[in-house]
């Protein structure tokens, strides 16, 4: 890909990303009752868990059980006892570093 094509690609990607972000934000939103309201309630957990699992088990695109997955599993165990973000991250990160030394 030449540099001018890269520049255009980045600009188009930026426009698409911004449009997806602004679509439901530009006007005052309704309360979204009913099914869509429940969908929006469930969406944050669904999104974050999907992000964590895909990043933890397929950091390079293919499924792998590496240090990141070990850290994620310890993080999940930590979640049983606390909901503090820093504690979950610290416990999982230490486990990932330890797994990296062992594996």
């Amino acid at each position, binding site marked *: 890909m030449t540099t001018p094509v890269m520049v255009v690609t980045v*600009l188009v990607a930026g426009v698409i990303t911004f449009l997806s972000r602004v679509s439901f934000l530009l006007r005052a939103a309704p309360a979204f009752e009913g099914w869509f309201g429940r969908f929006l*309630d469930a969406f944050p957990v*669904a999104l974050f868990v*999907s992000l*964590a699992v895909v990043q933890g088990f397929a950091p390079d695109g293919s499924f792998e059980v590496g240090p990141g997955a070990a850290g994620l599993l310890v993080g999940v165990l930590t979640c049983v006892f606390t909901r503090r*973000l820093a504690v979950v991250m610290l416990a999982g990160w230490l486990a990932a*570093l330890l797994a990296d030394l062992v594996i």
Partner: protein
Amino acid sequence: MVLSSFRRGVRASLGVNAVVAGFGILYGVGAVQAGLPPLLAIASSLVILSGAAQFTAVALIGAGAGPFAVIVAVTGLGLRHLPMGAAIGRLVPDVPRAKRLALAYVLTDETFGLTMRAARDGEPHPEDFMLGANLTLVTGWVLGTVAGVGFGDILDVEALGAGALFALLFLGLARESMTGRRDVYTAVAAAGAAVVSIFVIPAAWRITVAGLATAAAGASLPPPRALHRAPQPGREDLA
């Protein structure tokens, strides 16, 4: 603007955005290695401002993919912003359009999670809280990219487990978003859907498909009273 809310957003996001800055370094290194000119790599962090989209784009460019493939992948990843925008929109019904545009520019997974949590905890001005969180995120992401582009050969953040930290960041945000058993069911279903997606869905679409499908399934569950005929007070709270 309510400065106290803005400052709370800045404070709440500092730790998270330290991780984001580390990932920005990884992105800067990866972008240059993929063939992006240094200035374009930095500009992309300002224009796209989405780690998932940018990492996918540079991976495709580095692999020799054409612009159409990059745009399709970015579109797939960007679809998750639609319900994110709707969810934030519910929190800010009376905000002027200019501020809405500013909120939308930096509607990222991290600031979305922090803002939803703050609103749930009673933040009176989530729009100003989010602007504060957004400011630190943009700063961390762009400065991280600059550092990665300029000093990537001497900054080895991957050896410090930056990749694992990013997964843990989202796990922690998920945990903070969970308030009841329905969320536990949703989390378990999302984990299963995400694992399956790794095997059957192209990389750029996994997060969007798994997240949207699981949220749709969660929304279709019977109301809480039907799930638990005799709920005990306080049992819904996990904390």
